[in-house]
């Protein structure tokens, strides 16, 4: 029988993979994908807890997370496109134009 902790541990594992990927990779697009992984892990946690507590609010929170994730990806990819126009093939390490 699958208990809620299985889902929660899966979500923790997924979040960890996303976080490590975000720290290790240097391609801005891949880093965005890792953020998506982390958001998905949190979504799974929300739904699992919402179901365990019998509260639909968990699923409503996931709905809002989805909307914010969509907005975040749109803006992020626009930034990536704008940066690539100026500096083709830039990695996250090259983007230090704002440093003090």
């Amino acid at each position, binding site marked *: 029988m699958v208990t809620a902790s299985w889902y929660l541990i899966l979500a923790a594992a997924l979040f960890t993979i996303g976080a490590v990927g975000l720290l290790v990779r240097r391609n801005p697009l*891949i880093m965005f994908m890792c953020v998506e*992984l982390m958001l998905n892990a949190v979504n799974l946690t929300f739904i699992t807890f919402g179901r365990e507590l019998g509260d639909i609010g968990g699923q409503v929170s996931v709905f809002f997370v989805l909307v914010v994730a969509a907005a975040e990806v749109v803006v992020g990819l626009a930034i990536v496109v704008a940066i690539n126009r100026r500096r083709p093939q830039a990695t996250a390490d090259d983007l230090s134009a704002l440093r003090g």
Partner: protein
Amino acid sequence: METAVFIVCAAIVLAGALGVVLARNAVHAALSLVGTLFGMAVLFLNLEAHFLAAVQIIVYAGAIVVLFLFVIMLLGVDRLEDLSVEPITGQRVLAAIVGLGTFGLAVVFLLTSDIGARSVGTLTRDITDIGQYSNLRQIADVLFTDYVYAFEATAALLTISVVGAVVMSRRMARGDEAQEAAEDD
């Protein structure tokens, strides 16, 4: 049955996530992301979140990953990336420590809470049931009453982000671009 579905989907989700992190080619990473998102959608079904499972596929697999692929193709960054060099010394070791710490702490907290030990019930309701207590009706009831201001705020957020994306990715007039490039150098 639910256990089998969970195990298969968990394997797909984790394999896809590892594919995203380890893929040298950005296109392969995006395709691995699709696998993860599909597995996650099935897990949502397993948890009786029918509406969100559909939204997950439509929004993530249908829109976000396509957007990723579009940008990858548009920029021509689908070259192979050399993962053998470590940009910052000791970065991967530190990232692994952070990852293990995150995972360990999360698991410890989850397993010591009394919620984690409860059993998830089996699927009893029919997905096609559109009765009063369907998943969609429940979400809509809450979304348009308790969370109606937040819902309106998401509308504003989406509009603002679209406008922002258009402004940022707009190609500047030739004169402006040359001037900015000169300032940049």
